[in-house]
């Protein structure tokens, strides 16, 4: 009963988001919400590692950047056709698959901090690579490119990103409630016990890493399409930190959390940048976020959605107690 209510509510919100561009037609708002959709996908893929499997990555941006660069380079070289985009998709998936598999195999059998360090190193390597390989990437300056005309329309692109987010959400929802997803959560909860039940923990971790990597790559593709511009900043540590923040503020170990986190961070980002004229501090918004981050970790370690769930549970308990059950 309760379960169905949840889905109806979700469908209503989705429906509202689908018609939004025709109700409220503001260019800057549409662009902002589109960014939120994209980062929500990126954050959900990150949460599959952090929240569901218990793996900390400091280099999730590497997959994001690969997706973005494949798209940019592909569309620039092969022209703004759907075929070129399809090629870029293939390359993104293959590269992310390979890289996540290699990084995973190298480090996931070791203690968790090795994985964190290795991802950091790999991302740094890719960033330097993108800077130096100027013939391919135009270095730090980056380049602009055209996208298929159909996607040029902001409303269409908004709907495209929304659909993208919903599909990934449903896929990940299916994943986390599947036998495979439950084992991931078991690993997060108690790796030793998962082993003693007979699960090959390392394989599970590597697969979680691969799935998270490919989805991050896809979100990077859509990100590049939305900007029609790319430079080395897609590999920056900031991107990983942003997505870490989104996941933690929204609520680790939930799928809704990263979406809400993405919405909050992107909106705050936008508003603070506008306030930069008022005081210089607002331009250094990362300082403020650092503060928020510390406060959240100290007082709401479960994030918004996690805290909400817990609170709801307590309320339900109270109700039961009142009924004398």
């Amino acid at each position, binding site marked *: 009963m309760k379960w169905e209510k949840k889905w109806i509510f979700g469908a209503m919100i989705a429906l509202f988001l689908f018609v939004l561009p025709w109700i409220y037609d503001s260019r800057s708002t549409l662009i902002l919400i589109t960014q939120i959709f994209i980062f929500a996908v990126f954050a959900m893929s990150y949460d599959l590692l952090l929240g569901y499997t218990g793996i900390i990555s400091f280099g999730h941006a590497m997959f994001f950047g690969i997706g973005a660069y494949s798209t940019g380079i592909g569309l620039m070289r092969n022209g703004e056709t759907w075929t070129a985009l399809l090629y870029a998709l293939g390359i993104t998936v293959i590269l992310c698959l390979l890289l996540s598999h290699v990084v995973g195999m190298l480090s996931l059998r070791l203690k968790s901090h090795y994985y964190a360090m290795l991802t950091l190193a790999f991302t740094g390597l890719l960033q330097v690579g993108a800077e130096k390989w100027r013939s391919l990437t135009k270095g730090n300056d980056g380049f602009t490119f055209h996208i298929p005309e159909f996607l040029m329309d902001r409303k269409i692109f908004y709907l495209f990103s929304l659909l993208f987010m919903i599909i990934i959400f449903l896929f990940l929802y299916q994943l986390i409630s*599947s*036998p*495979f997803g439950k084992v991931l*959560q078991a690993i997060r909860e108690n790796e030793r016990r*998962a*082993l*003693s*039940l*007979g699960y090959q923990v390392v394989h599970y971790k590597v697969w979680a890493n691969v799935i998270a990597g490919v989805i991050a790559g896809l979100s990077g593709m859509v990100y590049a399409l939305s900007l029609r511009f790319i430079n080395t900043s897609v590999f920056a540590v900031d991107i990983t930190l942003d997505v870490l923040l989104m996941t933690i503020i929204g609520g680790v170990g939930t799928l809704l959390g990263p979406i809400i986190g993405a919405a909050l961070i992107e909106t705050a980002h936008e508003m603070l940048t506008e306030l930069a004229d008022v005081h210089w501090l607002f331009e250094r918004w990362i300082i403020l976020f650092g503060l928020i981050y510390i406060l959240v970790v100290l007082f709401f370690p479960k994030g918004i959605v996690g805290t909400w769930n817990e609170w709801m549970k307590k309320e339900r308990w109270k109700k039961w107690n009142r009924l004398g059950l």
Partner: protein
Amino acid sequence: MESILKTQNLTITFGGHIVLKEINVSIQRNRFTSIIGPNGAGKTTFFNLLSGQLKPTQGRIFFRDQDVTQLSPDARTRLGIGRSFQITDVFPHLTVLENVRLAVQARAGIHFHVFYPKQKMKELEDKAMEWLKKALLEHKKNELATYLTHGEKRKLEIAMLLALETELLLLDEPTAGMSLEEVPMILELIQSLKDEQNRTILLIEHKMDMIRNLSDQVLVLYQSELLAQGTPEEIMQNELVQSAYLGGDFLAP
């Protein structure tokens, strides 16, 4: 009677300290064997070696005539060595049912399924419910494991172990820390396992009456060595064993 588990000169040292020294035992199939010995005699370490949490410094372990000495814990579980832990070791933020279902799922060999049919998922759940009923825990199925009482966690632990349906069960003090009224229920459960006669059970316990009633064979570990083995009656009349325990009244009926 054929033996299912054999150890050969099993030795482990931590630093310079010898924790187990040249243990040679042979466990008969479908028999109930208890391991006793004072604290620090190496009982849990012995289990850790059998289940693969620790690797021996010397010696070998054979399970069904296969050398498993170098196998990882998960591989040994898949072969048929299941174990419960003395310190409760469940998945705290999953529900009780999910905890057991994970064990059922491992037993069924369902691993990398993302699009698993709902109907089959239900079957896994039903199977898990059966084990929960056996462990008298069905009323707690939707509770997070972390909110269970200590005794309930132990029951969950046992339900998970049973759900693995392994041929060999290693039970490390299943009643430790349980309230007195909970103990008989666990005893009954273990007795019923024994009565089914299709499992080999190894039990570490301190409660002597429990050991007397259940065991076909008793192993005594004392100061890192295997001091004696035999039927419960033999062990109780064994003078070495009597003197090993203070004054000998430990084993008095």
